[in-house]
């Protein structure tokens, strides 16, 4: 098992800090993805900063999506960071940190589409990535496990479904859809925004139930909100200022 | 009836038949004998073109069957063949085995095929086995069904390739009996066999083959009692 890609993030070694095993699914750009064999992304820089703030050394490992939950539930990993949406069902099994990211969902449609709002999604089939805020948002609109919702393993496939005419729209994080439209102008897609239709969704760090780390990390998250480190990372990845007020208000 | 001219047959580099000439007259019973591997089966199989021949001509009732324009399936309906291992269709009953070709090839009606099939089964003494499956028959019974199946196409000639050599000794007699009856009725027959008794009793002519040639041919009494060729003598001394 020497081929496993392990990326240690602690450049500045903290000799006293315990090394935490942090798991992710490096399959969700720009939050976490592989650049060659390195796991990079907003989440990675963020967890790096938070762990350092809390006094731990972080060892990030990409284990795949489903495995994250087994690793955390069995306490073999300490923290999961993978653009994980916090919801009540998941809280039954896991602990989550305070929200660290406000996810705004937007609608990706073909240029010619006449869908202009969330409500107009009804009656169309909509592609989403399984387990994302996009799925949450659409299910709140249409109903849980509605037959018009197609859940894919990743947004890449969901967008492909849209391109080939199998779905009228994709609902996903604004960063994901905007990035895609910017990079693929030839596909003739546009982004529709509807802040009324979609509730606010938040990402959190995920811990095993009853983890003692939660308190440390909650404190550390707030600390980097205050010292400007969070805003720095956010701007680096998304090019805009974060909406810290909404995030803090959610606590 | 059958005229074979300069017949040659090779499998790859192996020339199995080397210039064979023969004539079979109507109602004649020709017995072919010879050592294993001498080309007897190949000779027989060339007659109805189960093997594509390499060179030469085969005329059946004056028609050159090696001519590409001749419909070989048509020719084969005139030439019945009985194999060493019966080759009955195991998924069909005895009656179905017999009726299949008449129904599909001759397109006779089902009643007619059934009636004729029943007559043939009576002839080979197996009327009561009409609805049995081949697997439930003894070797001798199987071979008699195979003969009936070939006769159902009303062929003008019958070819037999060692019809008794896969049988238990007690069953050899019943099959030879059916063949003798056919001969008495005037069927033209070419029979490859090791049953020298049959050759003597029924054969009009015996052909001895070795290494792809017809080495000697004559009436049975002559060939068995006064073989001319050394090879014939050597062979007969072993098998008689």
């Amino acid at each position, binding site marked *: 098992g020497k081929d496993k890609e392990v990326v240690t993030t602690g450049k500045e070694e903290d000799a006293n800090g315990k090394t935490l095993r942090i798991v992710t699914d490096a399959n969700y750009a720009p939050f976490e993805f592989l650049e060659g064999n390195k796991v990079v992304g907003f989440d990675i820089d963020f967890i790096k900063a938070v762990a350092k703030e809390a006094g731990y050394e972080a060892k990030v490992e990409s284990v795949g999506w489903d495995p994250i939950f087994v690793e955390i539930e069995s306490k073999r990993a300490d923290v999961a960071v993978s653009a994980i949406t916090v919801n009540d069902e998941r809280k039954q099994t896991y602990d989550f940190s305070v929200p660290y990211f406000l996810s705004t969902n937007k609608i990706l449609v073909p240029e010619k589409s006449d869908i202009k709002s969330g409500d107009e999604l009804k009656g169309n089939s909509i592609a989403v990535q399984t387990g994302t805020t996009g799925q949450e948002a659409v299910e709140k609109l249409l109903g849980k496990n509605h037959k018009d919702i197609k859940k894919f393993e990743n947004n890449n496939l969901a967008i492909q*479904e849209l391109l080939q005419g*199998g779905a009228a729209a994709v609902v996903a994080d604004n960063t994901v859809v905007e990035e895609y439209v910017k990079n693929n102008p030839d596909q003739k897609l546009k982004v529709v925004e509807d802040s009324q239709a979609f509730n606010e969704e938040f990402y959190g760090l995920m811990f095993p139930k009853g983890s003692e780390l939660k308190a440390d990390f909650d404190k550390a998250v707030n600390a980097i909100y205050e010292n400007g480190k969070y805003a720095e990372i956010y701007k680096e990845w998304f090019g805009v200022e974060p909406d810290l007020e909404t995030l803090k208000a959610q606590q | 009836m059958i005229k074979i001219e300069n017949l040659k047959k090779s499998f790859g580099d192996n020339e199995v038949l080397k210039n064979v000439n023969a004539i079979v007259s109507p109602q004649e019973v020709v017995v072919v004998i010879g050592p294993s591997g001498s080309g007897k089966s190949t000779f027989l199989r060339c007659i109805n073109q*189960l093997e594509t021949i390499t060179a030469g001509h085969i005329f059946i009732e004056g028609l050159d069957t090696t001519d590409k324009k001749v419909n070989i*399936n048509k020719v084969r309906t005139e030439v019945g063949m009985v*194999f060493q291992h019966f080759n009955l269709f195991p998924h069909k009953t005895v009656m179905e085995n017999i009726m299949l*070709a008449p129904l599909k*090839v001759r397109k006779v009606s089902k009643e007619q095929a059934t009636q004729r099939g029943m007559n043939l089964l009576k002839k080979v003494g197996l009327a009561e086995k009409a609805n049995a499956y081949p697997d439930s028959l003894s070797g001798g019974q199987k071979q008699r069904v195979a003969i009936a199946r070939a006769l159902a196409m009303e062929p003008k000639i019958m070819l037999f390739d060692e019809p008794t050599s896969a049988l238990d000794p007690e069953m050899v007699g019943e099959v030879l009996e059916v063949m003798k009856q056919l001969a008495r009725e005037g069927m033209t027959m070419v029979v490859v066999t090791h049953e020298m008794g049959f050759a003597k009793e029924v054969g009009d002519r015996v052909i001895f083959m070795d290494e792809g040639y017809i080495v000697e041919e004559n009436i049975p009494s002559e060939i068995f009692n006064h073989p001319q060729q050394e090879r014939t003598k050597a062979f007969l001394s072993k098998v008689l």
Partner: protein
Amino acid sequence: MSFRWDIIFEYAPFLLKGALLTIGLSVSSILIGTFLGLLIGLGKIMRNKVLAAPFYFYVTVFRGTPLLVQIFLIHFGIVPFFTGETNAVAAGVIALSLNAAAYIAEIFRAGIQSIDNGQMEGARSLGMTHAQTMIHVVLPQAFKRMIPPLGNEFIVLLKDSSLLCVIAAPELMYWGKAMGSQYFKVWEPYLACAFIYLFLTLVLSFALNGLERRLKTV
């Protein structure tokens, strides 16, 4: 670690619905695949090597690449090309059928070639054509021998249909994954799916064994 029976019960109707689609997908694919497999198998045993070549190519490509890739290509490429839109169920049936056909073609070929040549010769010597012999003599016997390997292929197909969850065909595994991602649970959905798959394959084996036994006594 606690096993959450409650979420299995919550998702039971969806799993059931998914299982029905799994069955539907598998049954239609085995039927279409068997039909195509017969044609391809017959194509492969043609004497004319040039005519047989495309069939060899087909079998090589479909057996040489993962089904997952075939599913993607058919779902995002072939189906939209003809109908202008994707359709996971249609693509699923097509992908599974085409994939199975490559394996079934080999089963047919082996089945046909396992029939003693004497059967062919027996029929041809009666004046039957090659086609008549195939239809009335060789294939009926070959079919019987093909039931065990076809049964295996059917079971493989049933389980492979689980890969269709990647194109969001709402079969059993799709609902298992949906359940897992809602609760972030792994054991419950996968074990539940495993038991349903095991149940389906056992029923299938049982039925196939029965069929085999019945055919043997005929």
